[in-house]
């Protein structure tokens, strides 16, 4: 089986992650001394990485975040000084999701609440299950 046939076979087996990197990994195996088990391990971990990235992307898309790229890193807490900053960061860890606790964001600042609520929601995308954003 040559490289083209191997690529086709991997894609047929739904191993697109392996197919995308097989050439690079084979070059790597030739360039540096790599045992067969190391080469296979690299390919399997490439496939797993790609699958988890795809899963995350799919869940983020399903969650329908308004500003998916926005995060708390650039959030201006000085604008509303009375806002409980430590609570925001506590909620952003997503720990309340594991404990099945609820959260209520009250007030006129929907941008703030949206960004704050999307942070744990993004985190929940990496744990088993999905988050659901409803309006």
């Amino acid at each position, binding site marked *: 089986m040559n490289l083209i046939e191997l690529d086709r076979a991997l894609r047929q087996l739904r191993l697109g992650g392996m197919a995308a990197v097989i050439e690079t990994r084979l070059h790597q195996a030739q360039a540096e001394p790599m045992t067969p088990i190391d080469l296979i391990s690299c390919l399997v971990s490439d496939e797993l990485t790609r699958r988890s990235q795809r899963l995350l992307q799919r869940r983020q898309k399903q*969650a329908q975040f308004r500003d998916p790229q926005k995060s708390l890193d650039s959030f*201006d807490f000085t*604008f*509303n000084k*009375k*806002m*409980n900053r430590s*609570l*925001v960061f*506590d*909620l952003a860890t997503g720990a*309340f*999701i594991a*404990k*099945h*606790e*609820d*959260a*209520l*964001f*009250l*007030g*006129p*600042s*929907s*941008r*703030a*609440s*949206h960004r*704050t*609520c*999307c942070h*744990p*929601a993004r985190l*929940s995308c990496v*744990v*088993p*299950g*999905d*988050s*659901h*954003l*409803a*309006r």
Partner: protein
Amino acid sequence: MLDELAETTIDGTRKEHMDLLVSVPLLIIDDLGMRKLPMTSAEDLLEIVMRRYERASTLLTFNRPVEDWGKLLGDSAAVTAMLDRLLHHGHVLKCGPRSWRTKTEMLPQARDGLRAWPVLH
């Protein structure tokens, strides 16, 4: 979400839709109270909150104070029962009092104001 739920009652898919809403690990109900809600909103919300209580997290953003919920949803008893559950293990974050939208609107005005300032020589 509440509009969709009301529609699913008509087309007979309410159970499937409700099952999704009560089973996700984190349900975010964003901007509740921004527009007129269907007649069955209070009951539907109560059912969602009751079925998710201590099983899954619900995050709710509301631009009105808690005291107005009964009037807005039109069912004080349902709202009391819902708040009872939400606040039992709930975290309450008060966003405001100033709106972030006014901040972004203020910036260009402030910039224009600076430009219009007379230059003294």
